[in-house]
């Protein structure tokens, strides 16, 4: 995640913040379009997690891609996918539903559909190969899924942060400060960045600190959208953190 892909502001992503995934799935026809857009945002963010899971399960690229596409198409069109009971987190729901979907999917049916079905999310080769590179040899499929899910949350939060900063006319500042977000306050890169932005290191520290707080906010907002109950947020965050540190 060295660079942020230049994407246009995501309207549906912003709108999704008004609701939670459980409401998205339960929504009726009046808000169907809005809910579909929100669901699409979830698909775009979390497909690498499902893809990683499928690959770790032993599927080849094409099969994994077909499974993920088929799953999302079904999810968006019909919204009738059910996970195990008690899945109150989107993370658990998504994996449970995907497992069920994959189990019910006949192999021959899949091969007939290959190439002919609708592409719901754009599974680009670059991201897919990055996902495969990121698979640790000792990870179970579930662990690979969790790790990619955590990266999805972070990725989405970083995108939101960038969109927010661009909208405020601080694109150059953001792009310069972006590499500093993961560093300590006393890293040498601060001097370079200060020079580039013609400001003092102290001012830069304040700016990076504020960016970090905004990033924290976006991470929490993204995660809150993927939970049925707000009180689960901290526990979910810790779990994802543990997945990344495993």
């Amino acid at each position, binding site marked *: *995640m*060295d660079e942020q892909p230049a994407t246009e502001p995501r309207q549906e992503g*912003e709108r999704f*913040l*008004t609701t939670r995934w459980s409401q998205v799935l339960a929504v009726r026809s009046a808000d169907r379009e809005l809910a579909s857009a929100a669901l699409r945002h979830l698909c775009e963010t979390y497909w690498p997690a499902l893809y990683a899971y499928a690959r770790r399960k032993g599927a080849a690229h094409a099969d994994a891609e077909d499974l993920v596409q088929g799953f999302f198409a079904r999810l968006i069109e019909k919204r009738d996918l059910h996970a195990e009971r008690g899945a109150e987190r989107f993370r658990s729901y998504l994996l449970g539903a995907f497992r069920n979907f994959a189990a019910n999917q006949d192999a021959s049916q899949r091969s007939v559909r290959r190439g002919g079905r609708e592409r719901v999310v754009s599974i680009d080769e670059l991201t897919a190969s990055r996902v495969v*590179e*990121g698979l*640790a*040899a*000792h990870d179970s499929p579930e662990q690979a899924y969790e790790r990619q899910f*955590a*990266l999805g*949350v*972070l990725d989405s*939060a*970083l995108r939101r942060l960038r969109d*927010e900063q661009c*909208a*405020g006319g601080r694109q150059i500042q953001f792009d310069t400060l972006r*590499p500093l*977000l*993961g560093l*300590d306050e006393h890293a040498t890169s601060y001097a370079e960045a200060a020079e580039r932005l013609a400001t003092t290191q102290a001012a830069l520290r304040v700016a990076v600190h*504020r960016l*970090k*707080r*905004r*990033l*924290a*906010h976006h*991470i*929490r*907002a993204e*995660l*809150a*959208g993927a939970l049925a*109950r*707000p*009180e*689960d*947020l*901290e*526990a979910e*965050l*810790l779990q*994802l*953190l*543990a997945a*990344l*540190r*495993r």
Partner: protein
Amino acid sequence: MPTPAAERVTCPRCHAPLQAPNAECAACLLALAVDAVDDAPPLDDARDERSRSAPAAPTPEELASDFPQLELLERVGVGGMGAVYRARHLALEREVAVKILSSALAADVRFAERFQREARALAKLDHPGIVRVHDFGRAGQHWYLIMEFVRGASLRRKLASGPLPPAEALAIVMQLADALEFAHARGVVHRDLKPENVLLDEQGRARLADFGLAKLLGDPLDPGRTETGVTLGTPPYMAPEQLTQPQDVDHRADLYALGVLFYELLTGKWPLGRFDLPSQRAGVPTQYDAAILKLLEREPQQRFQSAREAADALTGLTGAEAQVEPAARDDDEVDDREKGPQASARTTPQARVLIAAGVTVLASFCPWFTVNLPRRGSTWGDRWALHISVPEPSIHDVRFTVFSWNAWTNLLDVQWPLWLPAVIALFAALDSMLAARGNWRPHPRWCLALCSLALALVVQTLREADSPHTTYGIGSLASAGALLVLVWHYLALQLASWLPAFVKVDGPRVVRKPSRRRTSTRSSRTR
């Protein structure tokens, strides 16, 4: 034979695996959000967005009319249970923290009861390690709790930048044990001890907050509040009995959580499933392992029985820490297992191999012991009798024994099934003792060596050899043994990780599967 873990590139701060040597650490970025105070977004649209997504928490202005005795300054945090505000108490003229129960939850009778319980439990406690409660009650539509305002950050925030140095972790855990002892003596169990609930004030002192789940032991009005089956707590820190018999939970559950917290402070990880010992992962002295494992015992009666007992054991560790301290301060970023400064202070594998090799070289130059082992005897006694002759020491003998082709071929050809494992067993035992330095217990390496020795004895017994006697020097055997110790090190470590039979010997394999047995709380109630 490097282990896979050694090949992985890890973040120098939090030890999370990285994709590439200089890649950004996603865990460090995600950790920014842990326990973050979600406040004051710089942009208006973001503020709007937050108000829509966050649970409805009143602004200080909205609360002002309900709290005439306070000047509410700012909201400092929003959590599952409600919001916390910084305020100035006008009569007391001091800063206080005000906790307001979430209005959505205030309607829930059970939740309001839980809130009141928290307040009552906390109001009983006056200890420097515990955040004080000044007042509590209901104002307008809000249940509130007025507490001491602690300037500083939570332990979770501190942990976000990686594990703590052992001395610092120990100091914090000892302060917490002290605070827990005080609360337990008053019949209050925290039941949700975790880094989020530990605040570090400006002096670096640990303060225990949020006795939100505390169960008042011995309160006749509160007979097993959780009997309805509601399990309260945070999973990684919950003792096994908290999951299986929440109604039987006593103060020893807090000691379990303290163990998890201690482990996390030292290693940055939770002790889940099969976990490494802190001495393996964080390079702390092995005495730490014993204390932490005792805190993490699955059965409450196997743990320390009181916070005092735990505190005493932890005090014993301060001495161990002092031995490590001077070296530990130099560099805290290198991989602890390979070249950790703490490890070097307590004999690294390399140092142990060097010591073993040194002993071997010395043994090689003592060639005047020659062992004659009869290969074939008529009786069992003859077959296993050791005939040790002491020849005249001479330069010729030295050369002969150390470099003799005969000695080596004898060793490799006929005698190795017996003698090689024997020498390896000796070296492995020596090595284990050096590694443990006084705190010795059977190491898997040692056990494996003994097993291979036993196997070799069997093989040798069944074996027939042609020559009646075989002569070889102890020095040659020792040299061969030393050469194999290095290989043995890695081989034994690998084997130990494969063989489940050695799980118990190795110590750290604690499986957190809740036990079915009911645990008694009677003894603790009288304590």
